């Protein structure tokens, strides 16, 4: 039982990495990135392709991916997504959904439908022994650690830095923020760039922990989304807790019947929506 709970929390760590980027983009510019999962899969395939060229540790491969991911996110927001923002959610939804279909099929064309993984070498099997004959994998633990660090980092970025202040300013009132000299288009682009850093990290870890195939994206998006809603919008701590709750629920479901894990997670999401639609730890208003 305790083992199931630990596995659930570790799985939640990975889901938190899926979700932080989505939470960030929605928080700053009310943009729902329906291609979130597909970009994670794209990053995973990017890491796999890079690993076939550069012989380096997978974590180093992930680090090499970061500047590329930031540039892609920045450019995407600056020159494509900014034009779709507005009161009507339709344009941004259609464009990101279109991107999702484009990415899925492009990956299918390039890499075929076979599942692939990053070779993690010894890291895949290393584990720490805990009292009570429980062992915890080093890799899942690292992922959870990175997720917690990422959450702390984002929270600090928003609370303490000038960049975080500009994020909050354009989120609260874009017009006033622009009157104060901020260029909201650039602020948005930086926010998406940072969200894509998380996407790159999530993709690399996903490819290290399990296999990825081109059609995986939508499911990852749904997990990320559920984590955000369960946790409550506007707080990164909420997103982390939401992801952990989702991971736990799924793991318990998997334990009962392997076919029920994901279904259990969905039901947990619906239950939270009915009982506490603002999420467990809501922060933002409106």
């Amino acid at each position, binding site marked *: 039982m305790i083992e199931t709970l630990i596995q659930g929390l570790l799985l939640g760590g990975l889901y938190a990495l899926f979700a932080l980027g989505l939470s960030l983009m*929605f928080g700053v510019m*009310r*943009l*729902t990135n*329906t291609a979130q999962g597909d970009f994670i899969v794209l990053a995973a395939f990017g890491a796999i392709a890079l690993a076939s060229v550069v012989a380096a540790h997978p974590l180093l491969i992930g680090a090499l991916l970061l500047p590329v991911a930031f540039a892609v996110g920045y450019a995407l927001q600056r020159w*494509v997504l900014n*034009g*779709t923002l507005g009161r*009507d*959610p*339709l*344009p*941004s*939804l*259609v*464009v990101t*959904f*279109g*991107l*999702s*279909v*484009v990415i*899925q*099929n*492009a990956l*299918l*064309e390039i890499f075929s439908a076979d599942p692939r993984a990053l070779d993690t070498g010894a890291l895949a099997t290393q584990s720490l022994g805990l009292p009570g004959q429980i062992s915890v994998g080093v890799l899942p633990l690292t992922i959870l650690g990175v997720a917690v660090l990422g959450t702390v980092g984002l929270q600090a970025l928003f609370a303490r830095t000038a960049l975080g202040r500009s994020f909050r300013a354009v989120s609260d009132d874009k017009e006033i923020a622009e009157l104060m000299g901020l260029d909201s288009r650039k602020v948005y682009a930086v926010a998406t760039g940072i969200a894509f850093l998380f996407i790159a990290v999530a993709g690399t870890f996903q490819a290290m922990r399990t296999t990825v195939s081109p059609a995986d994206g*939508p499911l990852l*998006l*749904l997990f990320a*989304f*559920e984590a955000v*809603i369960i946790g409550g919008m506007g707080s990164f701590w909420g997103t982390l807790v939401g992801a952990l709750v989702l991971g736990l629920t799924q793991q318990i479901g998997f334990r009962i019947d392997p*076919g029920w894990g*994901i*279904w259990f997670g*969905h*039901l947990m*999401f*619906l239950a939270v*929506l*009915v009982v506490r*639609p603002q999420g467990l730890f809501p922060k933002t208003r409106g």
Partner: protein
Amino acid sequence: MHALTDDHPASALPMPAAAAAARAGFDVVRSTRASRVALGVAAVLVAVAGSMPFWAESSWMRDFVEIACYLIFAMMWNLLAGYGGMVSIGQQAFFGLGGYAMLALGNFAGVNPFAAVPLAALAAALIAVPVSWVAFRLQGGYFAIGTWVIAEVFRLSVANISAVGGGSGTSLTALRGIEKATRESVTFWIALACVVASVALVYVFLRSKQGLALLAIRDNEVAAESQGIAVRRVKLAVYVVAAFGAGLAGALYFVGNLRISPDAAFSVNWSAFAIFMVVIGGIGRIEGPLVGALIFFALNKFLSDYGSWYLLGLGGLAIVTTIFFKQGLWGYAQQRWGWALFPTSRRLRLP
């Protein structure tokens, strides 16, 4: 629009609208020459199509049934998103429910599957009511993904019901005794009737009092509410009507297909194709999904051999249309030449 409160819910005019219009010296025009011509052409087309089982090849009829399903589904998505402002990626929930309800009625309850088609649509509409209690807690982009999760819940749940074959699906055995030619002709006529009924349903709904309220909500929800429109109730009505239509399309599709599985019935591709059709044709106008479905089907017919390249191009086309031609192809034509085959607006004609 302000003077035309003829069927506005919060009407302050004490006298009949026509009398008011006459006294004020203007006419309210609701049809155009194009719309009258279109109505005539449509009637002829329907009559010609109705005779198809007597002279056309059966592959044409199968194609027609398939287009009809896409078209009805896209039209309902257009009603929901383009008029109701509720962008959903989860309408396949009702498509699948319609299909499975039809199958259950036919295989287990002994209802004639053709008669089960409208009943299945009704079942989908009924289920939409409790679903809305959950879905309406989310707005905008999160509504879109939330409805998708709900559709996934239905897919996974149906996949666990062994009576309908679980994850691998089952066949519509209720149609077994019927001769192939008869089955194809009846399916075709039902599809034709469903298309005509759906276009009429959406058209009449949009020209009604509820439709006017819906347009007001789309333009500005707060202002609409302040005018006395029961925003929640109108939105629920649209959601239920759209679910009915999606269920109709689903039931029809699987009557034509004879085989159903959760992955086919609840596939997100249904919503994806509806979104692409509506956006490319022109959202928020009845002609949009008609044009979009024809383009979609033509592309599908000629390019689907290219598999993933075809889907890639479709996604790309939707992106380009959204960014550069926000009104879609028909919207562009309408702005350029003033075409309107199904006018829902009220225009003033001053003497």
